[in-house]
């Protein structure tokens, strides 16, 4: 009956839809700021708990900084991922997205980029706080690159799995269980690479972890992108 639109047009429309989804998430968040503030406060709490649980002394701190940082990001991240998907699911909005005549990849990228932005904002606040609290200088370009890459890998898998988790009966609890073990390789390489930069290790020592992180990012992005279609349909 109708001919399908030419591919170039399709690409532009996918891009527009992606932007629309990001805009919507940001607009809603700008209004309430609930997710960001929640993630933020939670991050600080996790740091506090670590501090109490471990009674970190100065020496220990040097070596575990990157571990604590990433554990914090991971926990705070699930909070954001869960909420971002719950918004879609609660009043059937996910159906609304699925009904729209846009490629599913637009939905995936829209949500993933939105999540990444939230995560980076939280990290941008937690990092200076952490470096003040523990009197450690964290502003090393290498470290920042690792954080970017690590967050990317985390969000890429997290968005996919949160889309699955919200569709189950146990949505409140399933996401961390699904996500953490799968994303652990990303986290570990991020921890190791960060540690390398923090302890000012040689690049040759850091490189394997850094590269591993890159490889994981690529693998996970490709896999998630290809699989997402199957996850959102009912």
């Amino acid at each position, binding site marked *: 009956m109708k001919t399908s639109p030419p591919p170039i047009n399709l690409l532009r429309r996918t891009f527009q839809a992606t932007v629309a989804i990001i805009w919507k998430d940001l607009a809603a968040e700008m209004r309430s700021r609930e997710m960001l503030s929640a993630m933020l406060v939670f991050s600080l709490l996790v740091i506090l708990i670590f501090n109490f649980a471990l009674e970190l002394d100065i020496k220990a701190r040097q070596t575990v900084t990157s571990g604590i940082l990433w554990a914090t990001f991971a926990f705070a991240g699930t909070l954001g991922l869960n909420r971002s998907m719950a918004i879609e699911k609660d009043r059937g909005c996910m159906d*609304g997205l699925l009904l729209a005549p846009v490629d599913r990849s637009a939905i995936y990228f829209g949500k993933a980029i939105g999540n990444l932005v939230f995560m980076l904002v939280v990290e941008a606040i937690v990092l200076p706080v952490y470096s003040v609290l523990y009197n450690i200088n964290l502003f090393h370009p290498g470290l920042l690159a690792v954080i970017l890459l690590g967050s990317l890998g985390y969000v890429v898998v997290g968005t996919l799995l949160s889309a699955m988790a919200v569709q189950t009966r146990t949505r409140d609890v399933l996401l961390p269980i699904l996500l953490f073990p799968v994303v652990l390789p990303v986290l570990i390489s991020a921890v190791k690479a960060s540690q390398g930069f923090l302890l000012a290790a040689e690049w040759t020592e850091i490189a394997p972890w850094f590269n591993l992180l890159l490889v994981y990012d690529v693998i996970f992005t490709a896999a998630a992108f290809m699989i997402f279609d199957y996850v959102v349909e009912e």
Partner: protein
Amino acid sequence: MIVVRSLVKRFGLKAVLRGLDFSVEPGEFVALLGPNGAGKTTFLRILASLTRPSLGEVKIAGYQLPQQAAEVRRLLGVVSHLPLLYNDLTAEENLRFYARMYSLPDETQRIGEVLELVGLAERRRDLVRTFSRGMQQRLAIGRAVLHDPEVMLFDEPHTGLDQDACEMLDTVLREVAARQRTVVMTSHDLARVGDLASRFDVLSRGQIVASIQRSQIDPDQILAFYRRAVEK
């Protein structure tokens, strides 16, 4: 416009739709009647490509579902049991978002029109979370007709609407029908559908057990027709 052949949908052990056959010509307005739990919502969700059929063939505008769902979606406007609205956006922002998803041209004008139509122009800048049930339903209808779809799938759209809103919806539906759009609407309010639809289908025991044109039936007889079909 819509052709469904021996459609089966199971949830676990239970078959909800059992070899359902159904077809709608362009421009028809079908009222889908049936008792609670008959499977009306399930059926509409399958037509909307939101649920996959277990077995059977579904074609809309010549496209096969679920394989060619992408092509079909542009043509559909859906009102479901849930409002499909974002609580943290205003009425206007919700429509703007959907307008962008459908890449409408001059979205601002169209949004204004639709808000006017559903009687929410005054509340356009209020967050959806503060809306009453009926106001949300109005906006949900606005969302569904925003891109002027060719096929409308409305699941109990009159739910929660007050008198004015019901009349608004009826006007919308009449106007849409006049423009030869295809409509499939479920409802439990037989008096109301009697005035609107051009055909009445009864879904029961997983199949369309009866179907009749409006020209062939007296409006008062619809209830009797429905009862006979269900109890058969």
